[in-house]
């Protein structure tokens, strides 16, 4: 999971943290017995720095720093393969969600800031129009990532095929949608 810490540097464990993750995810993390079925099923496992079953164990052990620094929850696409197969009925994707959300709110450096930016751009367009705007999302994301030129050909190909609507589709009662975002912000979410 992690190069073993030396005796001089005891592993920091936070035994109340698993409870916080259970509360946030609504999943019973303590039920995991480490069978590895989630890992064996995960299409992103080979790209992850902390395999799903290892992450579950690390949460159980309260290895908060290790888990919050992992990129795995950012690569998880919530395909739910783990969730429908876990013999203990744990929706691992929801645990991934909770861990990622925790890592986003603790003020640490975000493990995969590029992926965070993509989703923020998506939500920004929803905030603006009530509906996602794929053109603005791709342009904004590419620009922020400094890869506008590389991504331009893809955008142009889509446009040539009539697949990128430029004009936004807006919700008429847009204030209702903004109110949903504001409710989250007031609660201290993101």
């Amino acid at each position, binding site marked *: 999971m992690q190069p073993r810490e030396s005796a001089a540097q005891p592993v920091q464990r936070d035994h109340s943290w698993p409870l916080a993750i259970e509360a*946030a995810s609504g999943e019973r993390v303590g039920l995991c017995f480490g069978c590895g079925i989630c890992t064996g099923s995960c*299409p*992103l496992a080979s*790209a992850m720095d902390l395999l799903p079953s290892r992450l579950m164990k690390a949460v159980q052990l309260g290895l908060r720093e290790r888990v919050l620094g992992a990129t795995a929850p950012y*690569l998880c*696409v*919530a*395909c*739910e*393969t783990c*969730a*429908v197969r876990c013999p203990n009925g744990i*929706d691992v*994707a*929801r645990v991934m*969600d*909770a861990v990622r*959300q925790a890592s*986003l709110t603790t003020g640490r450096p975000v493990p*995969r800031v*590029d*992926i*965070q930016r*993509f*989703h*923020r751009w*998506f*939500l920004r367009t*929803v905030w603006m129009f*009530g*509906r*996602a*705007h*794929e*053109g603005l999302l*791709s342009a904004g*994301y590419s620009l922020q990532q400094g890869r506008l030129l590389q991504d331009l050909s*893809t955008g142009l*190909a*889509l446009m040539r*095929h*009539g*697949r*990128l*609507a430029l004009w936004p*589709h807006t*919700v*008429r*009662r847009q204030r*209702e*949608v903004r*109110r*949903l*975002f*504001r*409710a*989250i912000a007031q*609660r201290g*979410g*993101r």
Partner: protein
Amino acid sequence: MQAVGQKPLALYPGCSLLSTGAAYLASVRETLHLLGLAVKDLTDWNCCGASSAHFVDPELAVLLPARNLAIAEAMGADVLTACAACHHRMVQAEHDLSTSDTMARAAMEAGVAYRGGVRVRHLLSVLDETDLPGRIRRPLKGLRVACYYGCLLVRIPRSGGIDDPENPGIMERVLGACGAEVADWQGRTWCCGASLAATAPEVAGDLVQRVLVQAHRAGADCIATACPLCQLNLDLLQGAAATRAGFERLLPVVFFTQLTALALGASPRRLGFEQHLVEVRPMMAALAG
């Protein structure tokens, strides 16, 4: 359709179907029209939050669909979905709202008056209950289709997807009823990489390639999807994947509704085939031949 449930259905197109998935919406409408199913659009609907809402906040992931559910309730309708991701989010949200007091309260406090009881149905389920064989005007004879479910339609923990998560058969039944030959293949419920196509293209490209290898191996003429993002990824990333893997031909990736509409007699010109990046001409040739 009204015969299916007690309530009429209101179509929730979702954002992608107004943009990259426009061919999906065109062919959904064409299919409904040719079946004589009068379905209104859900009024003033908003984005379901897709994979981005739950990325940052569990409540946002429920509140966004909740507003749509409330609109359906006010219309006295159930929701009809086509996009796999929208379907997934709406079903999850309905489940969370009806089982969690915290979520129900959060929705109320954010101005969403949803009391419950709206069903979210996917078009595949509706077509599966329709007498298709009697309506087919141009059977899809000679077309070997690899039905691709991807993740979100069949894997909805707790609420249940539209079919068995490990071995679904609903798309095969629907397209089989349209006269297509459906391939038995391994990649049906594998992941296409979703939004990693934008953020980690090497990773998504690899997943796309795995799916394509299996579809080629099964001798498919095309891949049929029910998700705008699956379609986009398999279409857009296919050229590079084919070069890496040395495929001799490219596989058209279509929406299952483009096939149902064709079989029901729609003109191909109304189904958005010009929007595909991988040419569909070989598929049309297989159909004609």
